[in-house]
């Protein structure tokens, strides 16, 4: 099938970018990223016609677990399908003659490095500020030494599913990172291992989130709709509760 791709091309962090159109022949079995592999082969074979070179894009596992494949496809991070990463989106979701526009994630806190690649190290710095627990090292503890209630374990597990891809920020009209931070904070708040740092964690992570230049949440709900791991907006309600709890605890 024939696809017309409009791809954001930008030579470097400070270069001005723009959309460039390419016509490409794909099969319905290809994944969205394989389409880019095919496109890049074409671009590399024809350097005279395409001095701009291959399209730089992030990817790693190509099986929906690493969170690298950051693309905004026709205005939606990770494309049109629910709970699907870009690498798991297949061309059978499109039809012959479709025109598809692909842009990088856009946020002040995710500056474009080149083409579709953005720098998401602001997420790492948020994690460094509090997304960890303190444990005694040594032999692994027995599996059932630390009982956790079923409901809490389930909820913690759902929040822990976040792969840190940043689609929530890309989808948010305010480029807010509340869903990501909410998922990280709620995950650790729900398990006993997370209790030691519970109060300091939420304030430190939110402080770094603010300092990195993410926007403020106004509850649009676009993050949840775009999240490939279906992290619930409840993470944001939970984050706000944890913030209030920390404010009370530190006032004591």
């Amino acid at each position, binding site marked *: 099938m024939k696809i017309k791709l409009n791809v954001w091309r930008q030579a470097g962090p400070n270069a001005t970018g723009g959309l460039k159109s390419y016509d490409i022949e794909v099969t319905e079995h290809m994944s969205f990223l394989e389409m880019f592999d095919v496109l890049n082969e074409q671009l590399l074979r024809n350097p005279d016609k395409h001095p701009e070179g291959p399209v730089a894009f992030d990817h790693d596992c190509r099986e929906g677990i690493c969170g690298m494949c950051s693309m905004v496809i026709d205005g939606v991070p990770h494309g049109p399908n629910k709970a699907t990463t870009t690498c798991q989106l297949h061309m059978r979701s499109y039809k012959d003659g479709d025109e598809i526009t692909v842009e990088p994630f856009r946020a*002040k806190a995710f500056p474009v490095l080149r083409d579709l690649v953005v720098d998401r190290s602001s997420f790492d710095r948020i994690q460094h500020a509090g997304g960890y627990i303190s444990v005694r090292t040594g032999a692994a503890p027995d599996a059932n030494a630390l009982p956790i209630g079923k409901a809490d374990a389930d909820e913690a597990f759902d929040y822990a599913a976040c792969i840190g891809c940043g689609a929530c920020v890309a989808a948010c009209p*305010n480029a807010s990172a509340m869903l990501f931070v909410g998922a990280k904070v709620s995950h650790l708040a729900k398990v006993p291992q997370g209790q030691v740092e519970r109060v300091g964690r939420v304030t430190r992570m939110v402080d770094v989130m603010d300092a990195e230049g993410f926007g403020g949440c106004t509850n649009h709900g676009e993050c949840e709709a775009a999240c490939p791991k279906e992290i619930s907006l409840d993470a944001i309600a939970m984050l706000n509760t944890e913030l209030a709890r920390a404010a009370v605890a530190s006032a004591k």
Partner: protein
Amino acid sequence: MALTGLGLVGFLVGHMAGHLQIFAGKEAYNAYAAFLQSLGGALWLARAGLLGLLVAHVMSAIKLNARNQEARPQAYAVKTNKATTPYALSMIYSGYTILAFVVFHIAHFTLGALPTTEMTESGGVRDVYTAYVLDFQNPLLFALYAAAMVGISMHLAHAVSSTFRTLGVMRGKYREPLSKVGPLVGIATGVGFIIPPLACLLRIVSV
């Protein structure tokens, strides 16, 4: 945002209940107005409190809006929204509509600075009732108020449920029911406020 907004919502509900007393007739309505005036110091305290809430709300709204615009310096060429609503996307505009309306409304009734019906006395108290009823027989004035109520409805339709999430209560099994409260409060407030002026326009309530 949430706390000042919630305070303002509290005022709105009381204010709306006050206005619905227009249906209780001239004496009752004028007595209510006179009662408010008789509060004296307390009235000024309430006015100062409301103004404080409004100023704090507007200032944090302007700051939040600026922060959110800075957070995405370059817009998408194509952006497809899947979850949000037109009223959530227009909060700052419905907010400014409300602000313009508040100024107009105070100039109209509190200061009497507009060329509308002169306030006279009746039975020893200011005859707010008659001025109110005659004013809203003017379709233009009615249309202005109606437009402002659309703004308030839209603002609250998003704001009230949004506040529940900001306060952390709208999650788990409370999510579905509480997400419906905002739109309901929005519609109820807009309709509740416009009923008395509409009744005047249609001569259901008359002098």
